[in-house]
């Protein structure tokens, strides 16, 4: 009875806290500018089924891809077990779903195999990050918290799965001994291998072990749930909407700024119908996170820092400062900072003298980009660091007139000669008569 009350309080508190933190992230994402990503819903659902649910882009890198699918499937399916744990916790029952008989045995056995898969996957990932030290996990932007974050996630998952298996092992021993309440239910192909470790324990100790693991497992899950909003691991939730709201246009197509279209129409034809003046002065491009659109901000919270974008980026591969992963991480960190600022100032953002451009992302990074779309192609969930880079470039050029000198020369040539080089437009057809 007391256990049930404690359980219900913990569960309710965990759910409430999670709700509050998710609501905050949602609020922050919606600070972004409007962009229409709700067209063509059938194609979007298909894309989500293929890329997010089906993990089609993960397997481009087979080792990480297969391991990730193991973790993903394990995570999703083992959560069915959490339903039973929650019901048992609330009502003080034990293995309430065991009435399902053979199906129950099959499910428990599957969970065990998947738990083993998750443990193996996590260990492989841990080794890749900490022992093999794959290049893409060694970049500077991962120093400190991001690298620890990744390891905490892996360790937590191993602990949770171990608790699950130890719980089953002790439960099964108690079942065999016919100890009270421990009804014969479930099939334990993996945890049976652990049984010899606990065989000589007394019944009381086994009950302690089983209950301990049960509580550790569920409290761990509630705690982990509440860790998500502070972690790159939040991708397990946002990956699905992020893929759904992907850019469906060809990757080569960049947005035409509507605000610029109006100005250009006026320049070319002073008699053109003048659109109503906007309420706030027009700003071209993006200086800070609030100038980006909500999908770009959602991308920032979705990125799980795998670094495939960065490892495929030609600029990064040749030692330039640019790392597409860092662009999204910076966007997220700045947005989190802006969100805190808003919380502290009763709902309005008070200028803190900082901006995404300059304080987080430098001009050198932006000017290293080849706009080649290697980053967007390699992202397993279609995130778009290039869109952020382009918006910041636009601000540099159109608001600050701050392009590298050579590019200003190129602009002048296009304006004067209709070509990026200094050739006379009159000579444009000379090639046809040259040998």
């Amino acid at each position, binding site marked *: 009875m007391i256990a049930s009350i404690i359980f219900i309080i913990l569960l309710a508190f965990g759910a409430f806290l999670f709700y509050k933190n998710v609501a905050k992230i949602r609020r922050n994402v919606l600070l972004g500018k409007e962009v229409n990503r709700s067209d063509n819903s059938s194609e979007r659902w298909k894309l989500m089924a293929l890329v997010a649910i089906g993990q089609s882009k993960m397997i481009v890198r087979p080792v990480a891809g297969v391991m990730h699918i193991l973790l993903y499937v394990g995570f999703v399916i083992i959560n069915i077990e959490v339903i039973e744990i929650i019901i048992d916790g609330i009502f003080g029952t034990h293995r309430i779903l065991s009435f399902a008989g053979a199906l129950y045995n099959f499910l428990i056995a599957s969970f065990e195999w998947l738990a083993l898969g998750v443990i193996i996957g996590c260990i492989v990932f841990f080794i890749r990050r900490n022992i093999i030290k794959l290049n893409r996990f060694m970049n500077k932007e991962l120093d400190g918290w991001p690298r620890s974050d990744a390891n905490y996630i892996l360790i937590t998952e191993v602990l949770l799965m171990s608790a699950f298996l130890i719980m089953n092992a002790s439960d099964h021993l108690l079942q065999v001994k016919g100890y009270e309440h421990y009804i014969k239910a479930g099939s334990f192909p993996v945890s049976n291998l652990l049984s010899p470790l606990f065989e000589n324990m007394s019944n009381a100790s086994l009950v302690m072990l089983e209950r301990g693991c049960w509580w550790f497992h569920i409290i761990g899950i509630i705690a982990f749930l509440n860790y998500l909003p502070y972690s790159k691991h939040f991708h397990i939730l946002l990956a699905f909407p992020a893929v759904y709201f992907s850019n469906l246009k060809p*990757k*080569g197509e960049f947005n035409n700024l509507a605000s610029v279209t109006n100005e250009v129409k006026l320049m070319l034809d002073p008699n053109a119908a003048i659109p109503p003046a906007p309420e706030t002065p027009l700003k071209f491009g993006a200086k800070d996170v609030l100038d980006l659109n909500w999908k770009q901000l959602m991308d920032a919270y979705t990125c799980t820092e795998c670094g495939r974008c960065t490892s495929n980026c030609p600029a990064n591969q040749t030692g*330039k400062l640019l790392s597409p992963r860092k662009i999204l991480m910076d966007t997220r960190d700045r947005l989190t900072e802006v969100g805190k600022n808003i919380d502290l100032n009763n709902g309005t953002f008070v200028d803190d003298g900082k901006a995404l451009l300059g304080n987080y992302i430098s001009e050198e990074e932006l000017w290293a980009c*080849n706009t080649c*779309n290697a980053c967007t*192609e390699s992202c397993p969930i279609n995130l778009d660091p290039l869109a952020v880079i382009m918006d910041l470039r636009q601000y540099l050029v159109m608001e600050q007139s701050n392009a590298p000198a050579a590019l200003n020369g190129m*602009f002048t040539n296009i304006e004067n000669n209709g070509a*990026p080089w200094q050739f006379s437009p009159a*000579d444009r057809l000379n*090639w046809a008569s040259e040998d």
Partner: protein
Amino acid sequence: MSQLNVPTMADLMAKGETPDILFWVGCAGSFDDRAKKITKAIVKILNHVNIKFAVLGTEESCTGDPAKRAGNEFLFQMQAMQNIQVLNGYDVKKIVTGCPHCFNTIKNEYPELGGKYEVIHHTQLVQELIDSGKLKVEGGEFKGKKITFHDPCYLGRGNGEYEAPRNIIQKLDAELNEMKRSRANGLCCGAGGAQMFKEAEKGNKEVNVERSEEALAMNPDVIAVGCPFCMTMMRDGVKHFEKEDKVQVLDVSEMIAQANDL
């Protein structure tokens, strides 16, 4: 070499004729000495199959692509709208470009600004011509040669066209060897995003050197490209490794023209 027949839209208009397709030459194709050879190869193919085409000649202007990728949306849209005025003035319906950047910009970014055309890249046109039997291709000098194709970002990843250039190369009875980083995984030549027009940012290697090294490791006779900027970058890269006597860098259209003795 036979005389090229290069009618302009203005010429045809004066004669009351309309071409089936407009050949958008592009700035590199018009002014860059090496790229002009690609332009001529494309014209030779067009002449050879008797396609009724025209160029804009001195009425053509930069699409605005490098300005847009560099962040100068104003200049891009100025260029775009002026070009669209010219193109719509001639009632252009179909365009073939000699450059994936022009191709991408006119195909994807002009429609919203009022320029709606059917746009194809020259490798797509050549493939169409081969498929329809209008252009016969035999290996000629490329038969059995080792070829490595470098995907242009704005043709491949940018617009999903990986097959056309490869299909053409295979028609030459050549041995097409793929680099590890090819198709969707292709590495940029280093010119994109207006990098062509500026010094590279600080790093430990030039992108074109990295890419040429990868291409040269395939031990090719020819590095095939489909973009005048890739051409510049890959040629510079091949020179960097002092392999210019052994390895040719050719546009796919040049290979077709040479194989057919055009």
